[in-house]
Protein backbone atom coordinates (compact mmCIF):
# COMPACT_ATOMS: atom_id res chain seq x y z
CA UNK A 1 0.00 0.00 0.00
CA UNK A 2 1.27 3.48 -0.76
CA UNK A 3 2.30 5.69 2.11
CA UNK A 4 0.64 8.98 2.84
CA UNK A 5 1.06 12.04 5.03
CA UNK A 6 -1.80 12.87 7.36
CA UNK A 7 -2.26 16.07 9.36
CA UNK A 8 -3.32 15.36 12.93
CA UNK A 9 -4.09 18.90 13.91
CA UNK A 10 -4.15 21.80 14.34
CA UNK A 11 -7.74 21.13 15.40
CA UNK A 12 -7.54 17.51 16.46
CA UNK A 13 -8.74 16.39 19.91
CA UNK A 14 -5.39 14.67 20.46
CA UNK A 15 -3.28 17.82 20.23
CA UNK A 16 -4.58 19.66 23.34
CA UNK A 17 -3.66 22.98 21.90
CA UNK A 18 -2.91 24.47 18.56
CA UNK A 19 -0.24 22.43 16.84
CA UNK A 20 -0.08 19.96 14.03
CA UNK A 21 1.39 16.48 14.05
CA UNK A 22 2.09 15.38 10.51
CA UNK A 23 2.21 11.61 10.32
CA UNK A 24 3.44 9.44 7.45
CA UNK A 25 1.41 6.25 7.45
CA UNK A 26 1.69 2.89 5.79
CA UNK A 27 -1.76 1.54 6.49
CA UNK A 28 -2.01 1.76 10.26
CA UNK A 29 1.74 1.86 10.82
CA UNK A 30 3.53 5.12 11.66
CA UNK A 31 6.55 5.49 9.38
CA UNK A 32 7.55 9.03 10.20
CA UNK A 33 6.29 12.06 12.09
CA UNK A 34 6.95 15.75 11.67
CA UNK A 35 5.49 18.02 14.37
CA UNK A 36 4.58 21.49 13.15
CA UNK A 37 4.46 24.18 15.80
CA UNK A 38 4.18 27.94 15.79
CA UNK A 39 0.43 28.46 15.63
CA UNK A 40 0.51 30.08 19.06
CA UNK A 41 3.67 32.12 18.65
CA UNK A 42 3.22 35.48 20.34
CA UNK A 43 6.80 36.70 20.29
CA UNK A 44 7.19 36.71 24.06
CA UNK A 45 11.00 36.96 23.82
CA UNK A 46 10.71 39.96 21.51
CA UNK A 47 8.03 41.71 23.55
CA UNK A 48 10.15 41.20 26.69
CA UNK A 49 12.85 43.44 25.24
CA UNK A 50 10.34 46.25 25.30
CA UNK A 51 8.98 45.72 28.82
CA UNK A 52 10.12 46.60 32.31
CA UNK A 53 11.54 43.71 34.27
CA UNK A 54 8.34 43.20 36.23
CA UNK A 55 6.10 43.52 33.20
CA UNK A 56 7.72 40.44 31.70
CA UNK A 57 6.16 38.41 34.54
CA UNK A 58 2.75 39.12 33.02
CA UNK A 59 3.95 37.43 29.84
CA UNK A 60 5.30 34.45 31.77
CA UNK A 61 1.81 33.44 32.88
CA UNK A 62 0.82 33.29 29.24
CA UNK A 63 3.90 31.27 28.40
CA UNK A 64 2.48 28.15 29.95
CA UNK A 65 -1.11 28.68 30.94
CA UNK A 66 -1.36 25.54 33.07
CA UNK A 67 1.91 26.14 34.92
CA UNK A 68 2.18 29.92 35.11
CA UNK A 69 3.89 29.96 38.49
CA UNK A 70 6.74 27.73 37.37
CA UNK A 71 7.51 30.16 34.56
CA UNK A 72 7.21 33.20 36.80
CA UNK A 73 9.69 31.58 39.13
CA UNK A 74 12.05 30.73 36.30
CA UNK A 75 12.09 34.28 35.04
CA UNK A 76 12.36 35.96 38.43
CA UNK A 77 15.40 33.88 39.38
CA UNK A 78 17.16 34.82 36.14
CA UNK A 79 16.19 38.48 36.42
CA UNK A 80 17.34 38.66 40.05
CA UNK A 81 20.70 37.19 39.09
CA UNK A 82 21.03 39.67 36.24
CA UNK A 83 20.13 42.59 38.51
CA UNK A 84 22.02 41.32 41.61
CA UNK A 85 18.96 41.24 43.89
CA UNK A 86 18.30 38.72 46.66
CA UNK A 87 14.70 38.04 47.69
CA UNK A 88 13.80 37.51 51.38
CA UNK A 89 13.39 33.95 52.64
CA UNK A 90 9.66 34.14 53.20
CA UNK A 91 9.22 35.12 49.55
CA UNK A 92 11.19 32.03 48.55
CA UNK A 93 8.87 29.82 50.59
CA UNK A 94 5.83 31.53 49.08
CA UNK A 95 7.27 30.84 45.66
CA UNK A 96 7.81 27.18 46.43
CA UNK A 97 4.28 27.00 47.83
CA UNK A 98 2.97 28.38 44.55
CA UNK A 99 5.26 26.18 42.48
CA UNK A 100 4.27 22.94 44.11
CA UNK A 101 0.55 23.63 44.10
CA UNK A 102 1.07 24.47 40.45
CA UNK A 103 2.77 21.16 39.86
CA UNK A 104 -0.24 19.32 41.26
CA UNK A 105 -2.67 21.50 39.31
CA UNK A 106 -0.71 20.99 36.09
CA UNK A 107 -0.48 17.23 36.59
CA UNK A 108 -4.19 17.07 37.38
CA UNK A 109 -4.90 18.93 34.17
CA UNK A 110 -2.69 16.43 32.37
CA UNK A 111 -4.42 13.54 34.12
CA UNK A 112 -7.86 14.82 33.14
CA UNK A 113 -6.88 15.25 29.50
CA UNK A 114 -4.77 12.12 29.18
CA UNK A 115 -7.30 9.63 30.53
CA UNK A 116 -9.94 11.10 28.31
CA UNK A 117 -7.66 10.50 25.35
CA UNK A 118 -7.57 6.81 26.13
CA UNK A 119 -11.31 6.59 26.58
CA UNK A 120 -11.93 6.87 30.31
CA UNK A 121 -14.45 9.61 30.93
CA UNK A 122 -15.01 9.83 34.67
CA UNK A 123 -11.37 10.52 35.71
CA UNK A 124 -11.60 13.69 33.65
CA UNK A 125 -14.29 15.01 35.96
CA UNK A 126 -12.43 13.99 39.11
CA UNK A 127 -9.21 15.60 37.92
CA UNK A 128 -10.88 18.88 37.07
CA UNK A 129 -12.83 18.89 40.34
CA UNK A 130 -9.70 18.59 42.45
CA UNK A 131 -7.73 21.05 40.37
CA UNK A 132 -10.38 23.62 41.09
CA UNK A 133 -9.62 23.46 44.80
CA UNK A 134 -6.07 24.58 44.06
CA UNK A 135 -7.30 27.36 41.80
CA UNK A 136 -9.53 28.53 44.66
CA UNK A 137 -6.44 28.74 46.87
CA UNK A 138 -4.62 30.74 44.21
CA UNK A 139 -7.56 33.06 43.91
CA UNK A 140 -7.47 33.73 47.65
CA UNK A 141 -3.91 35.07 47.62
CA UNK A 142 -3.26 36.26 44.08
CA UNK A 143 -6.76 37.24 43.00
CA UNK A 144 -6.51 35.18 39.84
CA UNK A 145 -7.12 31.57 38.91
CA UNK A 146 -4.88 31.32 35.89
CA UNK A 147 -2.71 34.34 35.15
CA UNK A 148 -1.46 35.26 38.58
CA UNK A 149 1.22 37.96 38.13
CA UNK A 150 2.16 37.31 41.74
CA UNK A 151 5.94 37.02 41.69
CA UNK A 152 8.07 40.12 41.54
CA UNK A 153 11.72 40.63 40.81
CA UNK A 154 12.94 40.72 44.41
CA UNK A 155 10.11 38.81 46.08
CA UNK A 156 6.38 38.37 45.72
CA UNK A 157 3.56 40.87 45.49
CA UNK A 158 1.81 40.32 48.81
CA UNK A 159 1.66 38.02 51.80
CA UNK A 160 -0.95 35.33 52.37
CA UNK A 161 -4.42 36.29 53.62
CA UNK A 162 -5.34 35.28 57.20
CA UNK A 163 -6.41 31.67 57.54
CA UNK A 164 -4.77 30.61 54.28
CA UNK A 165 -2.55 27.91 55.75
CA UNK A 166 -5.51 26.16 57.39
CA UNK A 167 -7.37 26.22 54.11
CA UNK A 168 -4.28 24.88 52.32
CA UNK A 169 -4.01 22.02 54.83
CA UNK A 170 -7.65 21.13 54.21
CA UNK A 171 -6.97 20.92 50.49
CA UNK A 172 -3.89 18.77 51.07
CA UNK A 173 -5.87 16.46 53.36
CA UNK A 174 -8.50 16.15 50.68
CA UNK A 175 -5.99 15.48 47.92
CA UNK A 176 -3.94 12.79 49.66
CA UNK A 177 -6.48 9.93 49.43
CA UNK A 178 -7.59 11.09 45.96
CA UNK A 179 -4.36 9.94 44.31
CA UNK A 180 -5.14 6.37 45.32
CA UNK A 181 -8.59 6.73 43.80
CA UNK A 182 -7.05 7.95 40.54
CA UNK A 183 -4.80 4.94 40.54
CA UNK A 184 -7.72 2.60 41.07
CA UNK A 185 -9.54 4.14 38.13
CA UNK A 186 -6.57 3.78 35.80
CA UNK A 187 -4.18 1.10 36.98
CA UNK A 188 -7.11 -1.07 38.07
CA UNK A 189 -8.44 -1.07 34.53
CA UNK A 190 -7.31 -3.69 32.03
CA UNK A 191 -8.14 -1.32 29.19
CA UNK A 192 -5.65 1.18 30.57
CA UNK A 193 -2.85 -1.37 30.62
CA UNK A 194 -3.70 -2.71 27.18
CA UNK A 195 -3.57 0.77 25.74
CA UNK A 196 -0.53 2.10 27.59
CA UNK A 197 1.96 -0.63 28.42
CA UNK A 198 5.05 -0.75 26.21
CA UNK A 199 3.86 2.23 24.22
CA UNK A 200 5.94 5.23 23.20
CA UNK A 201 9.09 3.74 24.67
CA UNK A 202 12.03 6.14 24.92
CA UNK A 203 15.04 4.75 26.77
CA UNK A 204 17.20 6.89 29.04
CA UNK A 205 20.05 7.16 26.51
CA UNK A 206 17.74 8.41 23.79
CA UNK A 207 16.18 10.88 26.22
CA UNK A 208 19.60 12.38 26.87
CA UNK A 209 20.59 12.43 23.20
CA UNK A 210 17.40 14.11 22.11
CA UNK A 211 17.12 16.59 24.94
CA UNK A 212 14.03 15.09 26.58
CA UNK A 213 13.52 16.02 30.25
CA UNK A 214 10.97 15.94 33.02
CA UNK A 215 8.64 13.02 33.77
CA UNK A 216 9.63 11.43 30.45
CA UNK A 217 13.29 11.04 31.43
CA UNK A 218 12.41 9.99 34.99
CA UNK A 219 10.05 7.33 33.65
CA UNK A 220 13.11 5.85 31.89
CA UNK A 221 14.79 5.35 35.25
CA UNK A 222 17.18 8.29 35.10
CA UNK A 223 17.12 10.17 38.40
CA UNK A 224 17.16 13.71 37.23
CA UNK A 225 15.31 16.47 38.97
CA UNK A 226 16.71 19.98 39.20
CA UNK A 227 15.07 20.42 42.60
CA UNK A 228 17.54 17.78 43.83
CA UNK A 229 20.43 18.13 41.38
CA UNK A 230 20.78 21.93 41.41
CA UNK A 231 18.48 23.01 44.26
CA UNK A 232 17.17 26.49 43.59
CA UNK A 233 15.09 28.63 45.95
CA UNK A 234 14.62 26.71 49.25
CA UNK A 235 14.37 23.17 47.88
CA UNK A 236 17.57 22.30 49.70
CA UNK A 237 15.73 22.65 53.04
CA UNK A 238 12.80 20.48 52.00
CA UNK A 239 12.52 16.75 52.29
CA UNK A 240 11.16 14.84 49.30
CA UNK A 241 11.98 12.01 46.91
CA UNK A 242 12.38 12.02 43.16
CA UNK A 243 9.62 10.04 41.45
CA UNK A 244 11.01 7.28 39.27
CA UNK A 245 9.80 4.48 37.01
CA UNK A 246 11.78 2.13 34.81
CA UNK A 247 9.44 1.09 32.02
CA UNK A 248 10.10 4.21 29.88
CA UNK A 249 6.61 3.91 28.39
CA UNK A 250 3.27 5.65 28.74
CA UNK A 251 2.42 3.78 31.95
CA UNK A 252 5.79 4.78 33.39
CA UNK A 253 5.07 8.45 32.74
CA UNK A 254 1.70 8.04 34.40
CA UNK A 255 3.32 6.50 37.48
CA UNK A 256 5.97 9.22 37.68
CA UNK A 257 3.42 12.04 37.53
CA UNK A 258 1.21 10.39 40.13
CA UNK A 259 4.17 9.97 42.50
CA UNK A 260 5.26 13.56 41.84
CA UNK A 261 1.89 14.81 43.02
CA UNK A 262 2.24 12.82 46.23
CA UNK A 263 5.72 14.23 46.76
CA UNK A 264 4.43 17.74 46.10
CA UNK A 265 1.87 17.26 48.85
CA UNK A 266 4.73 16.22 51.12
CA UNK A 267 6.71 19.35 50.22
CA UNK A 268 3.66 21.56 50.67
CA UNK A 269 3.01 20.33 54.19
CA UNK A 270 6.54 21.36 55.19
CA UNK A 271 6.20 24.71 53.42
CA UNK A 272 2.85 25.50 55.02
CA UNK A 273 4.24 24.68 58.48
CA UNK A 274 7.24 26.93 57.86
CA UNK A 275 5.06 29.80 56.70
CA UNK A 276 2.99 29.58 59.88
CA UNK A 277 5.99 30.20 62.11
CA UNK A 278 8.15 32.62 60.14
CA UNK A 279 6.54 35.97 59.43
CA UNK A 280 8.65 38.52 57.62
CA UNK A 281 8.95 40.73 54.59
CA UNK A 282 8.00 39.27 51.22
CA UNK A 283 9.88 41.64 48.94
CA UNK A 284 13.46 42.83 48.99
CA UNK A 285 14.09 46.26 50.44
CA UNK A 286 15.60 49.21 48.65
CA UNK A 287 14.15 48.34 45.29
CA UNK A 288 13.49 51.22 42.91
CA UNK A 289 9.89 52.02 42.07
CA UNK A 290 10.30 50.73 38.55
CA UNK A 291 10.81 47.29 40.04
CA UNK A 292 7.47 47.49 41.78
CA UNK A 293 8.60 48.26 45.31
CA UNK A 294 5.79 49.13 47.71
CA UNK A 295 5.07 52.80 48.10
CA UNK A 296 7.81 54.43 50.13
CA UNK A 297 7.99 57.81 51.82
CA UNK A 298 8.67 60.43 49.20
CA UNK A 299 12.22 61.63 49.23
CA UNK A 300 13.75 58.51 50.71
CA UNK A 301 16.74 58.00 48.57
CA UNK A 302 16.73 55.14 46.12
CA UNK A 303 13.00 54.62 45.92
CA UNK A 304 11.61 57.19 43.59
CA UNK A 305 14.88 57.78 41.83
CA UNK A 306 16.02 55.49 39.08
CA UNK A 307 18.63 53.39 40.74
CA UNK A 308 21.30 52.31 38.36
CA UNK A 309 21.94 48.60 38.40
CA UNK A 310 25.25 47.28 37.20
CA UNK A 311 25.17 45.24 34.01
CA UNK A 312 24.89 41.51 34.35
CA UNK A 313 23.54 38.30 32.96
CA UNK A 314 21.34 35.80 34.71
CA UNK A 315 20.85 32.15 33.90
CA UNK A 316 18.33 30.02 35.70
CA UNK A 317 16.90 26.55 35.35
CA UNK A 318 13.90 25.17 37.20
CA UNK A 319 12.04 21.88 37.24
CA UNK A 320 8.79 22.84 35.65
CA UNK A 321 5.88 20.32 35.74
CA UNK A 322 6.76 19.34 32.15
CA UNK A 323 10.55 19.21 32.54
CA UNK A 324 13.54 21.48 32.69
CA UNK A 325 12.89 25.09 31.80
CA UNK A 326 15.69 27.59 31.46
CA UNK A 327 15.86 31.34 31.19
CA UNK A 328 18.71 33.61 30.19
CA UNK A 329 18.32 37.31 30.93
CA UNK A 330 20.82 39.88 29.69
CA UNK A 331 20.86 43.16 31.59
CA UNK A 332 22.67 45.94 29.79
CA UNK A 333 21.61 48.56 32.32
CA UNK A 334 18.29 50.35 32.24
CA UNK A 335 14.76 49.25 32.89
CA UNK A 336 14.32 46.69 30.14
CA UNK A 337 16.15 43.42 29.65
CA UNK A 338 18.34 43.51 26.55
CA UNK A 339 17.55 39.94 25.63
CA UNK A 340 15.51 37.19 27.23
CA UNK A 341 15.78 33.61 26.08
CA UNK A 342 13.59 30.79 27.32
CA UNK A 343 14.08 27.09 26.96
CA UNK A 344 10.83 25.23 27.02
CA UNK A 345 10.90 21.57 28.07
CA UNK A 346 7.90 20.64 25.93
CA UNK A 347 9.61 22.18 22.89
CA UNK A 348 12.45 19.67 23.29
CA UNK A 349 10.11 16.80 24.17
CA UNK A 350 8.04 17.33 21.01
CA UNK A 351 11.14 17.75 18.86
CA UNK A 352 12.06 14.15 19.73
CA UNK A 353 8.63 12.85 18.62
CA UNK A 354 10.16 10.76 15.84
CA UNK A 355 12.08 8.75 18.44
CA UNK A 356 9.08 7.59 20.43
CA UNK A 357 6.37 7.39 17.77
CA UNK A 358 7.75 5.65 14.71
CA UNK A 359 6.77 1.98 14.60
CA UNK A 360 3.51 2.34 16.54
CA UNK A 361 -0.03 2.43 15.15
CA UNK A 362 -2.37 5.32 14.47
CA UNK A 363 -4.53 4.47 17.48
CA UNK A 364 -1.44 4.74 19.70
CA UNK A 365 -0.90 8.41 18.88
CA UNK A 366 -3.37 9.89 21.42
CA UNK A 367 -2.00 7.99 24.42
CA UNK A 368 1.61 8.67 23.43
CA UNK A 369 1.12 12.39 22.85
CA UNK A 370 -1.06 12.53 25.95
CA UNK A 371 1.77 11.07 28.01
CA UNK A 372 4.13 13.79 26.74
CA UNK A 373 1.86 16.44 28.30
CA UNK A 374 2.00 19.08 25.60
CA UNK A 375 1.47 22.71 26.51
CA UNK A 376 1.60 24.69 23.29
CA UNK A 377 1.90 28.04 25.01
CA UNK A 378 5.43 27.32 26.13
CA UNK A 379 6.47 25.56 22.92
CA UNK A 380 5.65 28.57 20.78
CA UNK A 381 6.22 31.33 23.35
Amino acid sequence: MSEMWINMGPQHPMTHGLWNLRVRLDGELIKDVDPEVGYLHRGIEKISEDRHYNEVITLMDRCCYVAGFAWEHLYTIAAERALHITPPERAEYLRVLSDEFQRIASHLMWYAAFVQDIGLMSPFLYGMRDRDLILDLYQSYTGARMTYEYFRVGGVRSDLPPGFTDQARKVLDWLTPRFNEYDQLCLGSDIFHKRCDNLGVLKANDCVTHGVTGPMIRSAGLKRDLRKDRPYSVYRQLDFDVALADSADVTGRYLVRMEEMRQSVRILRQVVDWLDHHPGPVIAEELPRWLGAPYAPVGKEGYLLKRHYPKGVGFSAVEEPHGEAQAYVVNEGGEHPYRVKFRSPVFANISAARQYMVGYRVADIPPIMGSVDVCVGEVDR
Partner: protein
Amino acid sequence: MEAEELSRALAPALGDRLTAVEPFPGTAGRVRFRPDGALDVFRRIHELGFTHLSTVGGIDWVDHREVFYVAWSDALKQYVFLSTDLPADSPHIESATSVWPSADWHERETWEFVGITFDHHPDLRHLLMPDGYAFHPLLRSFKLHEPEELEVKVRHV
Protein backbone atom coordinates in the same frame (compact mmCIF):
# COMPACT_ATOMS: atom_id res chain seq x y z
CA MET B 1 33.39 21.49 38.59
CA GLU B 2 34.45 25.11 38.68
CA ALA B 3 35.60 27.36 35.87
CA GLU B 4 39.30 26.76 36.58
CA GLU B 5 38.88 23.02 36.56
CA LEU B 6 36.89 23.25 33.35
CA SER B 7 39.61 25.37 31.82
CA ARG B 8 42.27 22.79 32.75
CA ALA B 9 40.18 20.01 31.20
CA LEU B 10 39.61 21.89 27.96
CA ALA B 11 42.77 23.89 27.33
CA PRO B 12 45.23 21.10 26.32
CA ALA B 13 42.93 19.58 23.71
CA LEU B 14 41.60 22.80 22.26
CA GLY B 15 44.57 25.16 22.30
CA ASP B 16 43.82 28.55 20.79
CA ARG B 17 40.31 27.55 19.75
CA LEU B 18 39.43 28.32 23.35
CA THR B 19 39.27 32.04 24.08
CA ALA B 20 38.33 32.13 27.76
CA VAL B 21 36.64 30.18 30.54
CA GLU B 22 34.86 32.46 32.99
CA PRO B 23 32.84 31.75 36.13
CA PHE B 24 29.14 31.97 35.40
CA PRO B 25 26.50 31.68 38.17
CA GLY B 26 24.32 28.61 37.92
CA THR B 27 26.73 26.73 35.66
CA ALA B 28 30.22 25.22 35.72
CA GLY B 29 31.43 28.18 33.71
CA ARG B 30 31.10 30.10 30.49
CA VAL B 31 33.35 28.74 27.77
CA ARG B 32 34.13 31.24 25.06
CA PHE B 33 35.63 29.85 21.88
CA ARG B 34 36.57 30.78 18.31
CA PRO B 35 33.72 29.97 15.90
CA ASP B 36 35.98 28.23 13.34
CA GLY B 37 36.86 25.54 15.90
CA ALA B 38 33.28 25.04 17.04
CA LEU B 39 32.98 21.34 16.23
CA ASP B 40 36.13 20.45 18.19
CA VAL B 41 34.83 22.40 21.16
CA PHE B 42 31.47 20.62 21.02
CA ARG B 43 33.15 17.22 20.81
CA ARG B 44 35.46 17.95 23.71
CA ILE B 45 32.60 19.26 25.87
CA HIS B 46 30.59 16.16 24.97
CA GLU B 47 33.54 13.94 25.95
CA LEU B 48 33.66 15.66 29.34
CA GLY B 49 30.21 14.25 30.03
CA PHE B 50 27.99 17.11 28.94
CA THR B 51 25.91 14.79 26.78
CA HIS B 52 22.60 16.59 27.08
CA LEU B 53 22.27 19.78 25.06
CA SER B 54 19.52 21.86 26.64
CA THR B 55 19.28 24.85 24.40
CA VAL B 56 20.82 27.02 21.71
CA GLY B 57 20.15 30.72 21.41
CA GLY B 58 21.44 33.89 19.85
CA ILE B 59 21.82 37.53 20.77
CA ASP B 60 22.05 40.42 18.36
CA TRP B 61 24.66 42.88 19.65
CA VAL B 62 24.20 45.03 16.50
CA ASP B 63 27.94 45.13 15.69
CA HIS B 64 28.19 41.36 16.05
CA ARG B 65 26.03 38.40 17.01
CA GLU B 66 26.50 35.96 19.81
CA VAL B 67 25.42 32.33 19.74
CA PHE B 68 25.24 30.37 22.98
CA TYR B 69 24.73 26.75 23.97
CA VAL B 70 23.75 25.23 27.30
CA ALA B 71 24.68 21.60 27.98
CA TRP B 72 24.10 19.42 31.04
CA SER B 73 26.17 16.62 32.51
CA ASP B 74 24.37 13.88 34.42
CA ALA B 75 27.55 12.76 36.15
CA LEU B 76 28.57 16.24 37.34
CA LYS B 77 25.00 17.47 37.80
CA GLN B 78 26.00 20.73 36.22
CA TYR B 79 25.40 22.96 33.26
CA VAL B 80 28.04 24.42 31.02
CA PHE B 81 27.49 27.58 29.04
CA LEU B 82 29.25 27.96 25.69
CA SER B 83 29.26 31.13 23.68
CA THR B 84 30.99 32.65 20.70
CA ASP B 85 30.82 35.83 18.70
CA LEU B 86 30.01 35.87 15.00
CA PRO B 87 30.40 38.74 12.50
CA ALA B 88 27.15 40.59 11.86
CA ASP B 89 27.49 40.56 8.06
CA SER B 90 27.65 36.77 7.63
CA PRO B 91 26.87 35.03 10.92
CA HIS B 92 27.35 31.31 10.43
CA ILE B 93 28.69 28.47 12.53
CA GLU B 94 28.99 24.70 12.24
CA SER B 95 25.83 22.90 13.36
CA ALA B 96 26.02 21.01 16.64
CA THR B 97 23.56 18.36 15.48
CA SER B 98 26.33 15.86 14.67
CA VAL B 99 27.43 15.96 18.33
CA TRP B 100 24.08 16.60 20.02
CA PRO B 101 21.06 15.58 17.90
CA SER B 102 18.87 17.61 20.25
CA ALA B 103 20.33 20.81 18.76
CA ASP B 104 18.06 20.32 15.74
CA TRP B 105 15.03 22.42 16.66
CA HIS B 106 16.96 24.86 18.81
CA GLU B 107 19.22 25.73 15.87
CA ARG B 108 16.24 26.06 13.56
CA GLU B 109 14.72 28.50 16.01
CA THR B 110 17.96 30.48 16.38
CA TRP B 111 18.36 30.70 12.62
CA GLU B 112 14.78 31.82 12.23
CA PHE B 113 14.84 34.48 14.95
CA VAL B 114 18.41 35.76 15.10
CA GLY B 115 19.50 35.01 11.53
CA ILE B 116 22.47 32.79 12.40
CA THR B 117 23.10 30.12 9.77
CA PHE B 118 24.13 26.68 10.99
CA ASP B 119 26.30 24.95 8.39
CA HIS B 120 25.52 21.29 7.67
CA HIS B 121 22.29 21.39 9.64
CA PRO B 122 20.15 18.52 8.29
CA ASP B 123 16.90 20.43 8.05
CA LEU B 124 17.28 24.19 8.42
CA ARG B 125 13.76 25.49 7.73
CA HIS B 126 11.17 27.63 9.45
CA LEU B 127 9.86 26.35 12.74
CA LEU B 128 7.63 28.84 14.55
CA MET B 129 7.17 31.33 11.72
CA PRO B 130 5.35 30.54 8.47
CA ASP B 131 7.36 29.24 5.53
CA GLY B 132 8.85 32.04 3.47
CA TYR B 133 8.83 34.51 6.35
CA ALA B 134 11.51 36.98 5.33
CA PHE B 135 12.46 38.59 8.65
CA HIS B 136 14.48 37.65 11.69
CA PRO B 137 12.30 39.06 14.47
CA LEU B 138 14.83 39.02 17.31
CA LEU B 139 17.24 41.33 15.53
CA ARG B 140 17.43 44.80 17.04
CA SER B 141 16.63 46.28 13.63
CA PHE B 142 13.22 44.58 13.71
CA LYS B 143 11.05 47.12 15.52
CA LEU B 144 7.73 46.44 17.16
CA HIS B 145 5.10 49.01 16.38
CA GLU B 146 5.22 51.98 18.68
CA PRO B 147 1.78 52.94 19.95
CA GLU B 148 1.86 56.32 18.17
CA GLU B 149 2.59 54.65 14.85
CA LEU B 150 -0.72 52.84 14.94
CA GLU B 151 -3.39 54.93 13.33
CA VAL B 152 -6.60 55.00 15.27
CA LYS B 153 -9.50 56.04 13.12
CA VAL B 154 -12.32 57.59 15.06
CA ARG B 155 -15.63 57.51 13.35
CA HIS B 156 -17.79 60.53 14.14
CA VAL B 157 -21.47 60.02 13.96
